[in-house]
């Protein structure tokens, strides 16, 4: 048989949970093999076993038909297995070449030239379009990911593992990554791709292994299986991709942004003379390519970043100078862009994380003393409602949760108190289709209750599915605000590139 990788009957337990229960994965040479599964199904765990980060409790691994023991990533590398992690491991102020040959310091000067040559050759061979001499901090996230890919190729990896590679990419970059993957398999590499996006699986994968709650459900031939079929196999019930959304009376303004100017870290204006109103009963989506000032805008509204000029009004009150806490208390919920950095305290329990904004208030504490039972109960409710799964429930450390479950916990925390305004930045990043359906439903319900949502997303689908109005941002400026029903993706796409709607509609 031409299986390059066979993981047979793998089992892996963590305290309180069987992450992999008798899972078998067989990857053929030269294929792109997708792994699909709910959040917490055990996909990352399975890949960590293949890469030698965890040791399976049971089961065997074969590479090219030979049984192997992979006790650490070094073994994996020797066997030609490479992995692109979600969080890149690159030295920011080093060049591409330096990053790729890192560890070779003793021959640094001698090797650099020939290494750069090899890297350039590889880059051309696979269509990576990387300049070996550019410095990491100057290149985009998509480029950085390609440097990671180059790193694997430079080390002669034959089997490439991608764990949710597209979660951090813009739609254009995703398109390019797909093409790169096709090039890679054309050159005889084999790829294991973990993703929650079914259209990506459809676009590049030949077969897909589906797992649910640690168990293997089946392998499907991607070409002959519809997205809906795959989704329902994975979740165990039919999933709807369209959001049911009725008409709702738009009420009084909740958030009024007026002539806002904000500087970014490099002291350039990231938000320029930005004005926008979000009212009760509406979801306003901010569309734009990543890095066009959305992050700075959100940070300015939530108080995490000082503003240069302009005003913010919340429920009719001037909140320009409110502290972060005052904004929380006024009724702003915030699903942050970077869940690892801002969203959670990884070493703390889920329980504590669920009250990180509320701990000082009744009923969670009284006279400065925490009431742990109330806190735990609150956390239980969130985990229940938002289906946050983990080995030890609310006592699990946040860092032990799977990526998607971390995200669900944050969304739950921000939504459960029903603030007047929820600022949701990429709220469904890393979530499985079932969870996306649920979060979308909750956001719409939130609006239906006469509250407001400010949605920031790089996925046009999500923007169009949820928003009543779409505000398009380009290099810090508001290009235009349009009603979702009166526009289409092409028009918004043009505006995202900086073309005003009047010109676009001509």
């Amino acid at each position: 048989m031409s299986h390059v990788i066979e993981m047979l009957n793998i089992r892996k337990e963590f305290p309180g949970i069987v992450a992999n229960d008798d899972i078998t994965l067989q990857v053929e040479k030269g294929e792109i093999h997708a792994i699909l599964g709910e959040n917490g199904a055990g996909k990352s765990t399975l890949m960590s076993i293949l890469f030698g980060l965890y040791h399976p409790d049971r089961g065997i691994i074969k590479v090219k038909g030979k049984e192997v023991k992979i006790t650490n990533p070094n073994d994996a590398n020797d066997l030609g297995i490479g992995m692109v992690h979600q969080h890149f491991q690159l030295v920011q102020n080093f060049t591409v070449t330096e990053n790729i040959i890192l560890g070779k310091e003793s021959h640094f000067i001698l090797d650099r030239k020939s290494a750069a040559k090899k890297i350039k050759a590889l880059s051309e061979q696979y269509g990576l379009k990387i300049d070996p001499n550019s410095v990491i901090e100057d290149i985009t996230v998509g480029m950085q990911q390609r440097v990671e890919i180059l790193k694997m190729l430079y080390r002669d990896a034959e089997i490439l593992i991608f764990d949710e590679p597209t979660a951090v990419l813009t739609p254009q970059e995703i398109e390019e990554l797909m093409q790169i993957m096709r090039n890679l398999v054309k050159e005889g590499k084999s790829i294991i791709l973990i993703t929650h996006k079914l259209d990506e699986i459809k676009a590049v994968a030949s077969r897909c292994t589906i797992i649910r709650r640690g168990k293997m459900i089946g392998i499907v031939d991607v070409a002959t299986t519809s997205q809906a079929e795959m989704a329902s196999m994975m979740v165990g019930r039919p999933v709807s991709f369209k959001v049911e959304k009725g008409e709702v009376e738009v009420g009084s303004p909740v958030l009024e942004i007026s002539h806002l100017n904000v500087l970014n870290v490099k002291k350039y204006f990231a938000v320029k003379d930005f004005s926008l109103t979000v009212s009760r009963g509406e979801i306003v989506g901010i569309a734009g390519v990543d890095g066009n000032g959305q992050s700075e805008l959100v940070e300015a509204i939530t108080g995490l970043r000082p503003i240069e000029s302009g005003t913010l009004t919340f429920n009719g009150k001037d909140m320009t100078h409110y502290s972060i806490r005052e904004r929380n208390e006024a009724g702003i919920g915030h699903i942050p862009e970077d869940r690892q950095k801002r969203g959670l305290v990884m070493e703390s329990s889920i329980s504590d994380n669920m009250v990180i904004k509320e701990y000082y208030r009744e009923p969670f504490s009284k006279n400065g003393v925490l009431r742990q039972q109330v806190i735990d109960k609150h956390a239980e409710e969130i985990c229940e409602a938002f289906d946050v799964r983990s080995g030890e429930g609310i006592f699990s450390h946040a860092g032990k949760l799977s990526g998607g479950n971390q995200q669900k916990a944050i969304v739950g925390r921000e939504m459960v108190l029903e603030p007047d305004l929820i600022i949701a930045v990429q709220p469904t990043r890393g979530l499985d289709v079932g969870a996306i359906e649920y979060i979308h439903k909750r956001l719409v319900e939130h609006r239906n209750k006469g509250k407001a949502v400010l949605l920031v997303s790089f996925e046009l689908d999500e923007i169009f599915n949820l928003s009543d109005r779409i505000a398009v941002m380009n290099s810090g400026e508001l290009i235009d605000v349009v009603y979702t029903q009166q526009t289409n993706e092409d028009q918004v796409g043009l505006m995202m590139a900086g073309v005003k709607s009047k010109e676009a509609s001509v």
Partner: protein
Amino acid sequence: MSTKVKSNAFLVAISAVILGLIAGGLLMMAIGSNPFEGFYYLFRGGLMSMERVGNTIATAITLMLVGLSVAFAFKTGLFNIGASGQMLIGGLAATLVAHYVFLPRVIYIPVIILAAFAAGALWGVIPGFLKAKFNVHEVVATIMMNWIAYWSIYYFIPAYLKGPSLETESRSIAIEQSLRSDWLTDFFGGGYINLGIFVAVVAVIVVKYVLDKTTLGFELKAVGSNRFCAEYAGIKVNRNVIISMMIAGGLAGLAGMTFYTGYSRNIQIGVLPSMGFDGIAVALLGASNPIGVFFSALFFGLLQSGKGFMNAMTDVPPEIADTIIATIIYFTATSVLFSRFWDKVGKRKKERNDARTAKAEAQESDHE
């Protein structure tokens, strides 16, 4: 969950102690002494009589309070290396009270405690403030504060509290004005035991309570483990940095009080108390947990107070005794690092792997 974390820290501590003792034993063997004999006298020296037990406890009291100080700051992600200076200033405040304030005992004791705490807190809050406002690293600032305390004492003692004969130390505090207490002294049959024991035990309980059960502790810990998330949640990061250093300083100030007005009854000039640094080891061995600090302070107290006897009874020189303690401290420090290392095993392994593959390649290309 928390029990698992604790038991892990406990295992780390125990293995560090065992490794340290083994290393100490080997050291004794290397200089031709019998390690069993050495350890026998070391522990006997700390425990063989009530008086020696009392002295062991008296040593442990100070270590405990310094350990708490370091541990408390550490929970907020701060490294308080200035406990020595805070001890000196807290001790000076307590000494001044002891010389000049005469009150009934029930009022006197709270007054001296408050004075020592406030003085230490002042010495801690300054680096805290510098960190919060100007981002001056607390290690640099606390070390500077150590030397400011050192030279202040150097000047102050001879100028205002000179003893009758010696220029280099303050005049002794009257027994009734010190933390010594007749019934305690009688109970232990003499020695250095003093009321600091209650101060230390209460401090352990209070610190544990504050960290685990109060909103203040919640905030301090959140700031310590992820300041970005704390900020996002509306917690005032800078305010917590200042509070944390203030309380840490206060605790070290109390340590100074127990040392200078309890264990001894005067302050020497030209000495930065080494216990201020030993407290770092106490906190490390105790995994920055108040209960852990309690036990590790007792253990270090035992070693400290037993070493003299070992030195007297065997041919193990005092330097070797100190080396043994240092070795244990060393193993403590490294094994805590090891446990952190294991905590982050996934991440580290990956990094190491990257380095290794790069190296492997380097070798490969050598052959080419």
